[in-house]
């Protein structure tokens, strides 16, 4: 039997989440920030499936379905917004998108 338990999967999920978060903090390119957001979502799916497997229920798996769907829709709309923003501002560097200042 394997000695890989719930903890290992959760560790992976946590690490991935943290890396994604740090990526959001560090990167200046809006698209890359968005990708790091997706990383965080994926990390949460790993955690959900792991819990579902180790508790013997279906709920976590089914929820991942929804997360997948929502992530897809969100990416579509978000990228459309970014494209519109690019058309307006000719840039996707986050530092220059500061019209809400003060």
């Amino acid at each position: 039997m394997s000695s890989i338990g719930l903890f290992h999967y959760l560790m992976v999920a946590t690490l991935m989440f943290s890396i994604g978060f740090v990526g959001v903090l560090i990167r200046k390119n809006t698209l890359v920030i968005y990708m790091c957001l997706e990383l965080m979502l994926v990390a949460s799916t790993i955690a959900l499936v792991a819990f579902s497997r180790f508790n013997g229920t279906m709920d976590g798996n089914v929820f991942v379905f929804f997360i997948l769907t929502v992530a897809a829709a969100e990416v579509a709309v978000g990228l459309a917004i970014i494209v519109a923003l690019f058309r307006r501002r000719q840039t996707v560097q986050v530092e220059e998108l500061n019209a809400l200042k003060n």
Partner: protein
Amino acid sequence: MEPTQIALYTLLSPLVSAVVIALFFRRNGTIAATISVASAAVVAAGGLMLAYGGHRFDASMEWFRFYDFGMSLGFKFDDLAALMIAIVGVVGFCVHLFSLGYMADDEAKARFFGGLSIFMFSMLGIVLADNLFMMFVFWELVGFSSYLLINHYCLKQSAAEASKKAFIVNRVGDFGFLIGILMCYGVYGTVNFSELAMATTGGAVVATAIPLLLFCGALGKSAQMPLHIWLPDAMEGPTPVSALIHAATMVAAGIYMLCRIEMLMVADALQVIMWVGTVTALYAALCAVVQRDIKKVLAYSTLSQLGYMVAAFGLGAGQTDSGALFSVGAAAAMFHLTTHAFFKALLFLGSGSVIHGCHHEQDMFKMGGLIKKMPLTAITMLIGGLAIGGLPFVTAGFFSKDAILHLAQVTNPAVFGILVFTAVLTTFYMVRMWKLTFLGAPRSDSASHAHEGGFMTMQLPLIILAVLSIFGGYTHGALGFVYGHSFEGIWSQIPHPESLVGVVILSLAILGIGGGLAWVLYPSGDKDGLETQVPGAFAVLTLLKESFDKVYTYYVAKVQDRFAMLLNFIDQILIAGLIIRGLAGFVGLFGLGARALHVGSLHAYVYWFLLGIVMLWGFAGGLF
């Protein structure tokens, strides 16, 4: 209708009138005047109904309660209150009527009549009050009404100064009054007059300080020394105001209050009161001798007569016959207050008629020969002058003044001597005033074109008051129809010395000396006869008045103004600046801090998210 209801309506009708005028009729002087005169009529009718209907009652209701301190409002309607309400009602109505004519061409009539109504309300409150707190409330209200009315000609700087002075000096007296009330409450646990009477029966009065402090209120309101300085300046107000407030009613409130608290008096306090009154009487009479303005003469005369009343109270308040509700002193003081109200109001209204006729000329040395132009005024003022001088048996002033002199004679000969001398001076300046105003040739244009006022409004009150000045002295007997048997509680205590021949001779002597001297010294010329004939005395007398004012000016400039500047500093810089704006600034700092968060940078916002997540995670993980 029940007596309490009548009393309530009488009390509230001037208030209603004032409120209505203030809210709706600020511009329409005629309607305002009508409303005010109507309310004065209601007051007079109600007061006379209560006084002569024999209703004597006590009623009270609790206004608020704060743990075990309760303040109640109520009516204490005994003979004393009945007498006062009759005086206030009758004299008030006469003055209201007179004002219709006198203020007919004034621009701010509505304000004036509103002020008169507020004053009537406040005065009635003092008269009807059954405890010291309520009386204090209305005391202050009366002071406020006086301030309002003295400042009627508000565009004149002197009027503004005079009203301020009146209010502030009254405040000083009221400070002592308030401390006295608090001490009274602390010692006796109550400030209700009836309860105080029960608490002090058997002569158990605890402290001398209480009556003296309460007397401070009378010092301020009745203008005794050293707080007398506001009354002469208060003549800046219109003449009806002087007649009502500063002659007949408000200044008499001090005497009324003294009579109310006489159960608290001790012998030492009474000595002080007596001497204060005597000195005031003498000083004021001396100052009156050299005045040029007709109203100032009457003002000092009022001061002097108030001194008489206070001295009378001090002389006789210790002597209470068993079974009597009031002492001899209180009775004598109240009697003189009544007759004084009548003849002083008469004199003031007469002078108002003169001033109105001479187109607001107030200097006596510019009048003269008015007896031909204004005969009714001349005759009524003659009656008033003889009343204040005390013509035996005919005028009311004789009975009241000689009651006081008799009381002084049997109690304290020194005071008696001073009061007799003051009586001589009184007659002197009264005859001087009358002669300068009415006899001789007119000394100016306005005097030669003088005319009487309208009959219904200006002359009728004079006639009413003249009649009262003659018949107001008969408290018993066939001619006692003015009072009937309604005020037995007080009138029974008055000393009646007029049966003594010596008293009659003394009165005639006083009249003769004073009047004769005045007649001789003032041959109706332009100059002040005293000044030309006896310049030394004139200079001394003028100096008397000026020096007192100088002391006060010095005190105000050096002590009071500096203290006021210190308080101003504390208020503006410490309180307003540091504490209030500081606190506001502190809140503003929070705003600045919150503003700093909105940098527009996505990363900054995400960092705040991180902070939040870390904290949540930490909590969940049990780190903190």
